[in-house]
């Protein structure tokens, strides 16, 4: 007994320590962004000055990141959902190979993917300097996450039979896709969307290489701020990032929650109906 309680205590302490290890820097960083002078400490007083300065100087990066994330979401939905559907419906070796290939942009370092894009398309000046260039990189990187999460949902339901059932009732392909496939992918799509938006908002590796002075995203701006300006400004930047991403994630998470709870009943209850 004594031994068990000791182990439990140890585990508890460890968990708290890990949490603290993760949370303390966040809190410190937020405080730093609100302190008049970080080196003097909190005694120097709290201020919104840094936050406003960041807002004035880096507003554009923020809107670019948001725009990129949303565009990336739209594209991964348009490409990823049909792709996942096709992969789920085909049992062939080709489908499995495509599934594996899709994971490549995740496995390969972002810098390498970015270099590849620059080598291939860097010459197209108009494209190179536009945000679309970054968008392509983000889509490459996030598409597998959308496909995977939709595929995960599709693989647990017997989609072919559900579709056959719908077809027997008179549903053509478009109707089946709208009424049966999409609603049953809903949770996978939402989980995928959560991933895509988060990953696109926070992507730095690839974006850092792909960006131009006119196409700075939020994480790239953050790196600039940390590297070249006062620590307080970098921290205020982090604070804004948090304020932006947290409600977004919470909203998506709320959407992704299953609609109903499952009350499985015993088979014998069927006899009681008649």
């Amino acid at each position, binding site marked *: 007994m004594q031994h068990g309680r000791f182990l439990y205590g140890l585990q508890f302490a460890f968990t708290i320590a890990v949490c603290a290890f993760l949370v303390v820097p966040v809190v410190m960083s937020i405080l730093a962004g609100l302190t008049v002078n970080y080196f003097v400490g909190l005694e120097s007083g709290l201020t919104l000055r840094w936050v406003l300065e960041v807002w004035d100087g880096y507003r554009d990066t923020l809107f670019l990141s948001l725009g990129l994330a949303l565009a990336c979401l739209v594209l991964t939905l348009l490409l990823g959902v049909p792709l996942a559907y096709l992969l789920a419906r085909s049992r062939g070796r080709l489908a499995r190979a495509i599934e594996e290939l899709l994971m490549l942009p995740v496995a390969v370092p972002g810098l390498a993917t970015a270099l590849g894009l620059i080598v291939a398309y860097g010459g197209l000046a108009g494209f190179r300097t536009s945000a679309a260039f970054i968008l392509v990189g983000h889509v490459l990187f996030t598409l597998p996450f959308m496909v995977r999460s939709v595929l995960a949902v599709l693989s647990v339901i017997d989609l072919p039979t559900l579709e056959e*059932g719908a077809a*027997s*009732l008179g*549903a053509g392909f478009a109707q089946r896709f709208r009424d049966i496939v999409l609603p049953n992918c809903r949770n996978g799509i939402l989980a995928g969307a959560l991933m895509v938006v988060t990953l696109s908002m926070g992507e730095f590796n690839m974006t850092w290489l792909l960006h131009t002075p006119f196409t700075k995203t939020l994480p790239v701006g953050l790196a600039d701020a940390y590297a070249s300006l006062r620590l307080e400004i970098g921290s205020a930047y982090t604070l804004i990032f948090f304020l932006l991403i947290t409600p977004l994630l919470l909203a998506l998470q709320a959407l992704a929650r299953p609609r109903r709870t499952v009350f499985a*009943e015993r*088979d014998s209850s069927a*006899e009681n*109906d008649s």
Partner: protein
Amino acid sequence: MMQAVPIYLENCAKTFTDGTRALEPVDLAIAAGETLVLLGPSGCGKTTTLRLIAGLEQPDAGGRVLFGGEDVTALPIEKRNVGMVFQSYALFPNMTVAENIAYGLRLRRQSAAEQRARVGEMLALMRIERLADRSIDQLSGGQRQRVALARALAVRPRALLLDEPLTALDAKLRDTLRFEIDSLLRELGITAIYVTHDQAEAMALGDRIVVMDHGRIAQVGAPRDIYQRPASRYVAEFIGTMNRLSGHAEGEVFRCPGGYVVWPELPATAREILFRPEDTRIAAEGEAASLRGTVSAAFFCGDHVRLFVDVGEERPLVLETPARREYRHGETVALAVERHGLMVL
């Protein structure tokens, strides 16, 4: 109330893209309003035949599927207006029970009032009114099967196709639902094709049974015909239990290791005779006991005993006898066979 159509398969074979020959060329006529059961062991091509009728598979070149006078071979399933009930139910988890039943009506652009009326009718028919607003994951297996039937029937299909609809249910529920499906099919007078590997289910439900063997039709006939006059050893062994004696004919007498059987119509070339357990009985006292054997197993079944008697054959003879008397393992018994039940194949 339903528009029953006859269905014809003409020269329908099915070879899958991987080369599997699931069905040899088959001709089959299903009368309007008839319940036809496709029966056979797993892998014999029952589902493939059903899917050809449904329009989920295309027959090999040269095959035709006809609904009444209409050639539907080229029509996809969504244009054939057939009701399907799957073993796994295939109910839509994103819809309630009522929405599932209304789905086919919605596709046919019926008004909300028409849909509501028809759904109510179907719920009442299947006695599941209480379940209308439940989601599918809140239903038991038997309830799901009822919803699947209601959904398939709601659109007034030209034929109802059922693929092992009861296999996933437990034995007691299977009995109840089998009875219900039987009355339902009779009441509706719909052309129905019912796939099963369970011969008892086939006998109970089918107006006619098609016994299938490796993609071929082994026999087509009413349950009674198939049971009493099987066309082949395969059918005889698949339907019910068959007793077998091997030996040779001497005039009217068939001689075998366990004794002899007298049969005036005995063919001179018979090397083997067959008969059902119910045509086998313990010889009465004083009766000439032509067959003798030892009891190798006796199962008490309440009202009767199922006896296995070793008469020196490959397999023991099976018979059912009143449970009044007790039988012990190894005991010697004398048997008699009813002449009208004898057959050679």
